[in-house]
């Protein structure tokens, strides 16, 4: 078969269709009689809707119908849900305000959908949308996170969440942590901002909704990372239709980064309207709509304190964070700044006492939810910044301070719930130091100085948690769903294999990597394996792809199903060759009797399973197996990143000149695919550090609503990354995989800001560290340089 199994750098099977323009995205899907939907959105951050006059629009050419929020209520459409219940430190449940798909009375962020217009063409729908007259009574708004909790601040949901506080949540032992500070030899403090980010998947969100009157059945094609969850929620909470009357298909999807996990108002409204108006409806977001309606990411402000003893061992960490959830609580918004954040605050360190207090708050902004990394980038940034600052303040090398405090004995139980997988943090750091050529750094810095540039180096040793699990544990923490995965392996009579998985690929390369695992098992070429996903009519069930769970959880389910296939195949082969099934080995597409020259080809066995002319006693015909996998723990990828950069003091421009990432992802199926994931993640992490900032003005307007103002990283903003890894498999899943999809975005921001603050000689700079901010920092510290 050549080397196409686990560990092989196989080119991607899916690229043929993607690079030849044959991908099939939601916008490529059409139906007889398709119509087009356009949403009228709120231009205000906060306003009461006085009246909506649709008369003129309704009579315009091509207009089929107009649907507003009141019709959704009258039609019994349920409010959107947040699927993770958390409780505050006083035991009270989070204060979740009603989140109607389209509120007919009040708007609470710019871009909130108010009315759907459906017409024969998109241009007609857009024309008509422009003629809908909505009278708003503008109300004061609040969008700046630092002001949300101030006494007397404007309230987003005064009845449900007075003072904008959703939940005052805590984790860890406060008294023990305070005691650690009381006896500390050194205390280091830092204030941090996690800038708000817009996910910006290359394919905007889209939906094609249709209703079949003959079957009383809905179909939704949509840009989803988890179509089964979408169907479940649409059915159980939004009352669109029971699950067996609703098919959700997520065809090719052009990126998600978390933003396509959630079930948004637009999909719900399109489904509802398709039945009400009796036409299939397509809606495709414009880029600016994406900016104003896709769930945003991050947006924290934090205060952190680190206690150290006289031997420079960390003894305590205390964190106070305010996390902005926007105007409504999105599907997983409550768990991101809590169970996906505070649980990772121990970083790679033996840190005996940790206490975190997180205040989750409302504001008049787009809802905030998981975005690549979801909680872990915020945790990694905090701990890796304060450790670097501690090293500088205490005059020790940041490398030595980290090494002194790394966890060395595994499994390691942190004081914040997590039980870490085995890894080797020292080796991760040492490899990264070798790649960056640390011994040559002093000479490189001197050379920069000769050229009038400021050079800096920064480190980040991150750890994160993937494959949120096990279901029982997350259930006890408030999750509304289980977080297992399912798989079905169908071996066809001719021996080719179809794998149906509940994971969903929207850039992750499952069609290749999942096929590699199957191919390895039976010694078959990957072209004989097809991966099927993203359709609730085809795949039994699935929890979808996010949190880097497709490898650790999705592939584990496949692996379990393969175990069952293998067992049955051996039984059949043993029977056909009159040998004991225990003596059968499967290699290179053949089933052999060990120690003899007896063998049959894989396809002979599979055909036998389907002709069923000669089956062992009591064995059913066919060769199809299913499995569900519920992990016994999270998996814990970790790594060390080192960033080296140069600042032009005249302009404040930062250029990243070297960037090294050494990760431990456990078992790697395809190094090329993993490197791609790391590259993309680092790009987004550098984007967060230097380029990407989402801003609202004092009137609550989103001022970064297009690529003219919101700066995503481009190739020329980035250096060539040096990416390497070690493989310490996790014992907690059959393949030993830890997950790699988010690591880059988690580890990179701290490495960049640590390098930048090293270059500048000040800790006082916020993300994104734009040229003007850097220039101002230089002005403040060394004005002479900034004038050259």
């Amino acid at each position, binding site marked *: 078969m050549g080397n196409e199994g686990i560990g092989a750098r196989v080119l991607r099977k899916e690229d043929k269709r993607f690079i030849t323009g044959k991908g099939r995205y939601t916008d490529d899907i059409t139906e007889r009689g398709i119509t087009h939907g356009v949403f009228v959105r709120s231009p205000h951050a906060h306003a009461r809707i006085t009246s909506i006059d649709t008369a003129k629009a309704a009579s315009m050419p091509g207009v089929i119908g107009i649907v507003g929020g009141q019709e959704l209520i009258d039609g019994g459409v349920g409010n959107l849900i947040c699927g993770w219940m958390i409780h505050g430190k006083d035991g009270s449940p989070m204060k979740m305000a009603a989140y109607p798909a389209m509120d007919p009375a009040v708007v609470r962020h710019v871009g909130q959908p108010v009315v759907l217009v459906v017409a024969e063409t998109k*241009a007609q729908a*857009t*024309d008509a949308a*422009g003629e809908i007259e909505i009278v708003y009574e503008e109300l004061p708004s609040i969008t700046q996170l630092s002001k949300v909790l101030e006494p007397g601040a404007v309230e987003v949901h005064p009845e449900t969440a007075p003072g904008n506080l959703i939940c005052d949540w805590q984790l860890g032992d406060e008294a023990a942590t305070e005691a650690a500070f009381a006896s500390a030899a050194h205390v280091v403090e830092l204030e941090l901002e996690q800038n708000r980010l817009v996910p910006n998947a290359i394919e905007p969100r889209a939906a094609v909704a249709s209703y079949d009157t003959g079957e009383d059945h809905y179909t939704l094609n949509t840009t989803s990372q988890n179509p089964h969850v979408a169907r479940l929620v649409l059915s159980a909470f939004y009352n669109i239709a029971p699950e067996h009357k609703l098919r959700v298909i997520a065809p090719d999807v052009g990126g998600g980064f978390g933003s396509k996990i959630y079930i948004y108002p637009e999909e719900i409204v399109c489904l509802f309207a398709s039945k009400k108006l009796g036409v299939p409806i397509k809606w495709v977001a414009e880029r600016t709509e994406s900016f104003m309606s896709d769930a945003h990411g991050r947006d924290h402000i934090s205060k952190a304190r680190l206690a150290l003893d006289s031997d420079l061992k960390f003894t305590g960490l205390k964190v106070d964070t305010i996390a902005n959830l926007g105007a409504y609580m999105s599907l997983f918004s409550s768990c991101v700044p809590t169970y996906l954040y505070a649980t990772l605050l121990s970083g790679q360190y033996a840190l005996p006492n940790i206490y975190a207090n997180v205040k989750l708050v409302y504001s008049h902004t787009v809802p905030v939810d998981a975005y690549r990394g979801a909680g872990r980038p915020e945790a990694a940034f905090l701990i890796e910044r304060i450790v670097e600052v501690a090293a500088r303040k205490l005059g020790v090398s940041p490398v030595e301070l980290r090494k002194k405090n790394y966890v060395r004995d595994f499994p390691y139980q942190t004081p914040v719930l997590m039980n870490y997988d085995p890894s080797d943090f020292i080796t991760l750091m040492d490899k990264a130091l070798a790649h960056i050529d640390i011994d040559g750094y002093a000479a490189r810095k001197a050379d920069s100085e000769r050229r009038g540039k400021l050079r800096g180096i920064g480190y980040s040793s991150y750890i994160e948690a993937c494959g949120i699990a096990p279901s029982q544990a997350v259930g006890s923490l408030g999750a509304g769903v289980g977080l297992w995965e399912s798989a079905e392996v169908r071996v066809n009579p001719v021996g080719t294999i179809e794998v149906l998985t509940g994971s969903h690929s929207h850039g992750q390369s499952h069609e290749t990597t999942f096929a590699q695992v199957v191919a390895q098992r039976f010694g078959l070429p990957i072209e004989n394996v097809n991966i099927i996903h993203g359709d609730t009519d085809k795949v039994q069930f699935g929890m979808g792809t996010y949190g880097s769970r497709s490898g650790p959880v999705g592939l584990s389910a496949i692996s379990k199903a393969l175990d069952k296939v293998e067992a049955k195949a051996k039984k059949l082969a043993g029977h056909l060759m009159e040998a004991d099934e225990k003596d059968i080995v499967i290699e290179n597409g053949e089933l052999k009797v060990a120690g003899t020259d007896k063998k049959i080809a894989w396809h002979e066995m599979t055909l036998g399973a389907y002709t069923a002319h000669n089956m062992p006693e009591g064995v059913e015909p066919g060769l199809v197996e299913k499995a569900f996998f519920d992990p016994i723990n999270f998996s814990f990828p970790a790594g060390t990143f080192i960033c080296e950069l140069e600042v032009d003091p*005249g*302009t*404040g*421009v930062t250029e990243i000149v070297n960037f090294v990432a050494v990760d431990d992802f456990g078992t790697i199926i395809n190094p090329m695919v993993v490197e791609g994931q790391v590259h993309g993640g680092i790009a987004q992490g550098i984007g967060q550090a230097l*380029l990407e900032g989402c*801003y609202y003005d004092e009137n609550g307007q989103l*001022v*970064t609503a297009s*690529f*003219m*103002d*919101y*700066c995503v990283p481009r190739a020329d*903003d980035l250096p060539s990354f040096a990416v390497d890894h070690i493989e310490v498999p996790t014992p907690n899943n059959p393949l030993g995989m830890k997950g790699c999809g988010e690591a880059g975005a988690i580890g990179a921001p701290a490495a960049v800001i640590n390098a930048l603050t090293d270059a500048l000689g000040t800790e006082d700079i916020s993300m994104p560290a*734009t*040229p*003007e901010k850097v*220039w*101002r920092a230089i002005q403040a510290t060394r004005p002479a340089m*900034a*004038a*050259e």
Partner: protein
Amino acid sequence: MYATNYQRATSLDDAVAKLNAAEDGKFLGGGQTLLATMKQRLAAPSAVVDLTKIPELKGIGVDGGTITIGAATTHAAVAGSKEIAAVLPALTGLAGSIGDPAVRNMGTIGGSLANNDPAADYPAAVMALNATIHTSKGSYSPEEFFTGLFETALDEDEIITKVVFPVPQKAGYEKFRNPASRYALCAVFAALTSDGPRIAVTGSGNEGVFRVSEMESALGSNWSADAVTGVTVSPDQMLSDMHGSAEYRASLVSVLAGRAVKKAG
């Protein structure tokens, strides 16, 4: 985008006739500004009259001391012109810094100048080199032509036909890109012309492209980077937005002017 009528003009007269016949017509160059505006429904001309196929608007000529560029010449054509590069590489470099390849393959010098975006590149070259802008009705010096943000001396039915650049002794262009849009946040064109040194700044002026006479006179006696980096411009005349405050832009003018002079050699 609203529906519109596309019309292709074959000559200058034909273009003017078509424009005047339309209820609310607009000339169309490469469409890299106009079409984007129409797509956002910020403009809704009843007709667009395409100028790019008119023969007298095409072509590049380098002759003795001047460079002549037809108004419908694309940024890519200027960027790739060996003839221009031989005498004025600062100009090919400027054209090559505009947008991305798709923008450069469509966008034209005439469209860029007619639009007079305060963050556009060409106005800096035109101003610093004291180029002459020829139109269907006459010709303009840069000072006459650029009248304010997105404002020019052009009449509604007036067509830019060509731009004539005198070749300077030295020239350098230093562009600081807006990180998001990649337009000029601040850019300085420095030239030593037959009338002496000229420094033009784009991307930063609150009335569009402008000259810095103090820097020009400093360079008159001492053509060196040091002569200009010490000259400061007032933040009061600068644009200010989320990508760069007036103070930052004012500082960039001095820094970039020094680098532009250094590049010019």
